[in-house]
């Protein structure tokens, strides 16, 4: 039943995906997906922000350094920003930031940004499913040997 939520055989554990979503479009789009019962993988945890332009790239860096396996930022489609131009700033910053990730020792495929409007519930389902799949294919983020196990690592539910 929960085949969409399952990661590739063997690990049986959810990965740590964090989403930074603008309130007006993408968070609404995720709501629309919920209202439409568009089933998605459950790995993603969403942080609601007023605007994708509110995202400081350091949030993403910190999130990844804290041990997240993937970060997704989503805002309004360019030209359709609730604050007129916030997502233009976001687009520029995030594009530059993506190129910086290898310098930090992070696989740039662990970070994506996208645009989803409040009406695009189905598109949100596709974005989440595709991104989750992409992160699962990369596997958990690499950890230093001997690093302490965090609580969520022990409690990771194994639905299998």
């Amino acid at each position, binding site marked *: *039943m*929960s085949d*969409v*939520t399952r990661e590739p055989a063997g690990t049986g554990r*959810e990965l*740590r995906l*964090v989403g930074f979503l603008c*309130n*007006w*479009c993408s*968070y*609404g789009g*995720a*709501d629309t*997906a*919920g*209202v439409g*019962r*568009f*089933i*998605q*993988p*459950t790995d993603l*945890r*969403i*942080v*609601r*922000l*007023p*605007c994708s*332009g*509110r*995202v*400081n790239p350091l*949030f993403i860096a*910190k*999130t990844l350094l*804290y*041990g*997240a396996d993937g970060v997704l930022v989503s805002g*309004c489609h360019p*030209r*359709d*920003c*609730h*604050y*007129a*131009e*916030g997502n233009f*700033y976001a687009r520029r910053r995030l594009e530059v930031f993506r190129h910086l990730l290898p310098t930090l020792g992070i696989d740039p495929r662990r970070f994506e940004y996208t645009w989803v*409007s*409040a*009406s695009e519930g189905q598109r949100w*389902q596709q974005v989440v499913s595709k991104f989750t799949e992409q992160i699962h294919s990369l596997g958990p983020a690499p950890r230093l040997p001997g690093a*302490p196990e*965090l609580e*969520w690592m022990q*409690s990771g*539910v194994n*639905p299998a």
Partner: protein
Amino acid sequence: MRIGVFICHCGSNIAATVDVKKVAEAAWGMNDVVYSTDSMYTCSEPGQQAIEEAIREHKLHGVVVASCSPRMHEPTFRRTVERAGLNRYMFEMANIREHVSWIGRDKALNTLKATELVRMAVEKLRLNRVLTPKKIPATRKVLVIGGGVAGIQASLDCADAGLEVVLVEREPSIGGKMSKLDKTFPTVDCSSCILGPRMVDVAQHERITLYAYSEIDSVSGYVGNFEVNIRKKASYVDWEKCTGCGACTEKCPSRKTFDRFNEGLGATTAINIPFPQAIPKKATITAGACRQFQGKKCGVCAKFCPTGAINHEQKDEIVTVKVGAIVAATGYDLTDWTVYGEYGAGRYPDVITSLQYERMLSASGPYGGHIKRPSNGEEPKSIVFIQCVGSRDPSIGRPYCSGFCCMYTAKQAIMTKDHIPDSRSYVFYMDIRSPGKGYDEFTRRAQEEYGAQYVRGRVSQVYPRGDKMVVRGADTLLGLPVEVEADLVVLAVGGEASRDAPKLAEKLRISYDGFGFFMEGHPKLKPVETNTAGVFLAGSCQGLKDIPSSVSQGSAAAAKVMALLSRDMLESDPQTALVDIKRCIGCSKCVKVCPFGAIREQDLRGQIKAEVLEAVCQGCGLCNATCPQGAIQLSHATDNQILAEVEALLCQM
């Protein structure tokens, strides 16, 4: 800090796929949580009372509710905690319905996710601060965009309530689609007889300023204080002087201009007044058709105009207005039916659209109210109506039902019989959709009293044979192919969002859906609001609807505007940026990045510092993400609060 957590079952909406009790138990172990419980419907009266009681009993400083989306009930619960004496911003919500229970099937994983979302909310709440709204003055004036029946209704209602109204219409006359109709269903009322007086009311109302032949150039500002630039397009006629006498249109030699008002059914002159009841009744020159503009020697209109109103040198003019609220009522356009090759795609003169047929029926139309075949001017005896042209057709990207075509076709079938008693009407339909007061009875009347023959099935081809049109289709009830020889074919063309709707949405900073229809705040509970404060919707720009619904929505939007502007002062949202003077280095990057001009430089004892104008700040946080010092922080979404949510998720040792 003492935090209370409430986990909602939402009946079975959440509880079916989330172990709600387990989430509530887990919350007991979270930082600062001194009370945690679950409830059946937290938003219900007993649910809200339970929160109020818990706040008093457990001396809570802040509350977390885990339930539906905060876009749904955050305002509700903010009022709840406020009633119990807390600041309304000492409240956080975890979205465990739209983002958890409705999208994940695995109960164990859902329960884990819900617990983590609650922990994120708790950690954010621990850093919340008391915020107090400020009062801002509001301009008691409203802008209505679009002068169709919905915009007219909204304008009149607002103006009658004492508000100043600015009505902007991009065509030379208000009236919209309704002014093109001959009759209206289900009463067969004369359309211009019921709309005409309302249009005159608009023109004569002392509180309505009408800008016809104008468009919205740009919109800035925010609720209560919008600043709008209106582009008055050059009509090449000084409307101050034009009396609408029509002398120019009689003399104009360019007589083959496409007649937009009559849907191209006849031709008009380059200088024209769209229709006799036009408001304002002023002449406009279509530059593309005017001989003068093509470098030929003309100027006949200028010679015959008794008031000297013609001005071929006229330029577009920008007018700036300040308003407190905006109603978008931009209506719809007909779907492009020429994509249907099987119906002739505009090749045959005797295959026309339903709106062209309305112009044909109209006594003020190009045919003087007589039904004639455009090809030879003869009276048609056999008329075929084809339904769902450009509606309910995913193959052309229009999967939705336009909603009004079944009804207007029934009306047109009735009118046809009235005009030509010995005619026969055939209606090819998919389903008859006639929900509404007196609607189904009306479609039955068309069949039973007026003898319109309804054939359930699609038409596969329309082609000429001799001087007739052959309509081939299927009768799916009989399971037989059908062929009808018709003199006239009328396509019941559906509607789509006005072609420039997305552009306007971007100017108004409202959302639109994949078809270009503007998005309402909530599909059921906020049908005329948008997610942008102070911007409302009326009529078909929100989704196709018939005249009664458009009028209702026009009135509804007006009611919302009146409620908003009933006060002289509005409460500003206190979730604004705040500058830490000690950390600010006066680089002014925030000043440059702010889309609203809400930040300015101030001189503080010889040092440049940023200063936020709270009433202007819209709380996007662009400055916050830009500030190299982290000196400017968006209240209620500070860097620390956002990172606290991330840490709650990843750093629980």
